[in-house]
C-alpha cells in the first residue's frame, strides 16, 4: 500500500505540475457565438466598462464572467454570452463554458432551457422555481447560472443603458441541502461510535445506508466522487456549502475512521449491499484471484489522474456509476456499466467497491492501518481474514479490540 501511495502521489504531482505548464485555457470564439445568437446584427469590438460588444441595433452583448467573475457554480464559473436589448430585456444567451459535471447539467445547456431566459427583464427576480424553472439534481448549477445572468445583465443595463436596477437579488432553492447531508453524517457518525462499543447497534448502519441512498443519492444526487478531489487539487472550489460539507466531512472522517463514507453513507454501496442480499449462491473466489483483481481500481485511478490533471478537464475522468445512476444521465456505455455493476452484486457482494470504484481506491490509499478489523464470514466486502485496512469499510462487525498490532505495507 505504501508503494501504491508513493506511485499515485508521484503521478498526481508530476501531472498536476506538467498540466500547469502545458495547459492552455480553451478560448471560445465569442464572435462565432454572436453570429449564432444575433445573425442579423453587426457587433463592434469588445470595449467599455463592463466589457461589451455593441450592435448596430442598440443591443449589447457581453460575457457574464467578464462582468461578474465571482459567481461560481458547483465546480467553477459558468461563462455565458448574453445579448441584452436597450430595454433591459435578454434577447439571447448561450453558455460558453463551465466545469460542472455534465451528467447533472446536460439539460441546462440546451436551447430549450436557455430559451426560458429570453425575454426576461433586468427587473425580474430570476428566482429558481419561481420565475425560472429549476432542474432536478442540478440546483446549485442552475442557481449559479441564474445569478450570473441576472447580476451581469443588471450591471450592463446600469452602466451601458443607464437603467436603474436593483443591485442585489435573492436566488434560493436547495439552500438547506447541506443540512440534510450534515444530519446524515451526524447520524452515521453516532452509529459508527456506538457500534464500536456495542454490536447491538448494528441496525443503525442499515438505517444510515438506506438514508444515504435516499438523501445523498435520490434527493441531493451528490454522492462523494473522485471528481470532487480532482477539483480540489486543481484549485477549483465551489460556491456551494453542500460541496464543502461533503468534501470536508469525508476527508475528516478518513482521518479518524478510514472508509467510513463507503461503509455508512455511500448510496451506491447501500444499493450494492441491498442487491447482494438476494438469496442466491455467491461465487466462491480464491483469495489470490480476489486480491489480484482488487488492484484494478488503483490501476484505473493511476491511469485517469494524469489525463485529468494534464487536460484540466475533470469530466474526462468520470466513469463513476453512481453519478450515472443518481444523475439519471449517461451514454450507452455508462448505463451498461452501471447496470452490470448493480446486477453483479447478486453473485459478488459490493462488486464495484471491491474492484473498480475510484473513491474506494483513493480512500483506501489514504486510510491509516487499523489491525483491530480482522474480518469475518459476513464481511460486506468479502474481505479475507486480517485484510489490509484499505479494503475495510468500517462496518464494525468484526472489530476486535484485542487484536495484535500487525504492521502491513
Amino acid at each position, binding site marked *: 500500500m505504501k508503494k501504491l501511495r508513493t506511485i499515485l502521489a508521484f503521478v498526481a504531482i508530476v501531472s498536476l505540475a506538467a498540466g500547469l505548464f502545458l495547459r492552455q485555457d480553451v478560448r471560445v470564439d465569442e*464572435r462565432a457565438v454572436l453570429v449564432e445568437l444575433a445573425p442579423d446584427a453587426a457587433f463592434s469590438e469588445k470595449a467599455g466598462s463592463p466589457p461589451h460588444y455593441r450592435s448596430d441595433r442598440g443591443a449589447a452583448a457581453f460575457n457574464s464572467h467578464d462582468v461578474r467573475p465571482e459567481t461560481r457554480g458547483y465546480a467553477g464559473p459558468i461563462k455565458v454570452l448574453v445579448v441584452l436589448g436597450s430595454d433591459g430585456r435578454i434577447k439571447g444567451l448561450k453558455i460558453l463554458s463551465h466545469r460542472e459535471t455534465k451528467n447533472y447539467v446536460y439539460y441546462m445547456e440546451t436551447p430549450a432551457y436557455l430559451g426560458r431566459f429570453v425575454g426576461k427583464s433586468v427587473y425580474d427576480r430570476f428566482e429558481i422555481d419561481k420565475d425560472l424553472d429549476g432542474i432536478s439534481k442540478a440546483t446549485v448549477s442552475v442557481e449559479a447560472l441564474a445569478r450570473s445572468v441576472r447580476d451581469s445583465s443588471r450591471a450592463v443595463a446600469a452602466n451601458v443603458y443607464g437603467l436603474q436596477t436593483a443591485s442585489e437579488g435573492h436566488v434560493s432553492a436547495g439552500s438547506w441541502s447541506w443540512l440534510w447531508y450534515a444530519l446524515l453524517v451526524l447520524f452515521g457518525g453516532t452509529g459508527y461510535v456506538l457500534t464500536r462499543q456495542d454490536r447491538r447497534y448494528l441496525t443503525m448502519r442499515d438505517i444510515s445506508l438506506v438514508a444515504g441512498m435516499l438523501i445523498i443519492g435520490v434527493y441531493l444526487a451528490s454522492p462523494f466522487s473522485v471528481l470532487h478531489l480532482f477539483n480540489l487539487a486543481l484549485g477549483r472550489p465551489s460556491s456551494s456549502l453542500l460541496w464543502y460539507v461533503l468534501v470536508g466531512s469525508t476527508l475528516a472522517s478518513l482521518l479518524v475512521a478510514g472508509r467510513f463514507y463507503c461503509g455508512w453513507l455511500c448510496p451506491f454501496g447501500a444499493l450494492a449491499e441491498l442487491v447482494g442480499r438476494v438469496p442466491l449462491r455467491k461465487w466462491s473466489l480464491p483469495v489470490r*484471484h480476489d486480491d489480484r*483483481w482488487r488492484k484494478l481500481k488503483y490501476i*484505473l485511478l493511476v491511469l485517469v489522474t494524469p489525463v485529468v490533471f494534464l487536460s484540466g478537464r475533470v469530466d*474526462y475522468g468520470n466513469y463513476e456509476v453512481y453519478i450515472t445512476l443518481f444523475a439519471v444521465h449517461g451514454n450507452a456505455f455508462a448505463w451498461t*456499466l452501471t447496470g452490470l455493476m448493480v446486477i453483479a452484486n447478486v453473485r459478488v457482494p459490493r*462488486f464495484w467497491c471491491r474492484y473498480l470504484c475510484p473513491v474506494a481506491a483513493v480512500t483506501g490509499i489514504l486510510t491509516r492501518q487499523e489491525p483491530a478489523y480482522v474480518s469475518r464470514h459476513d464481511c460486506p466486502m468479502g474481505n479475507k481474514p486480517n485484510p489490509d485496512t484499505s479494503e475495510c469499510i468500517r462496518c464494525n462487525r468484526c472489530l476486535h479490540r484485542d487484536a495484535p498490532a500487525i504492521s502491513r505495507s
Partner: protein
Amino acid sequence: MTDQNKSTLLLSGASVLVLLVLSSNVFLDDYLAGLGERARRRMHYENTIQKRGLDLHKGMYWKEKE
C-alpha cells in the same frame, strides 16, 4: 465454467466498459461536438462570407459594409 472464470470474464468486460466510458468522455462529447461546430462555421464561411468576396475579418462585418 468455474466461479473464478465467470468472475474474470465479468471483470474483463467491466474493465472494457470503463475504458469505453473514459474514451467517450474525451472523444464523443468534445471531439465529435467540435467537428460539428467546425462544419457549421465552414458552411457559414462558404455560404455567407465567401459568396460576398470578403476575407474572414471583413466577413465579420459584412452587414456593416452592406
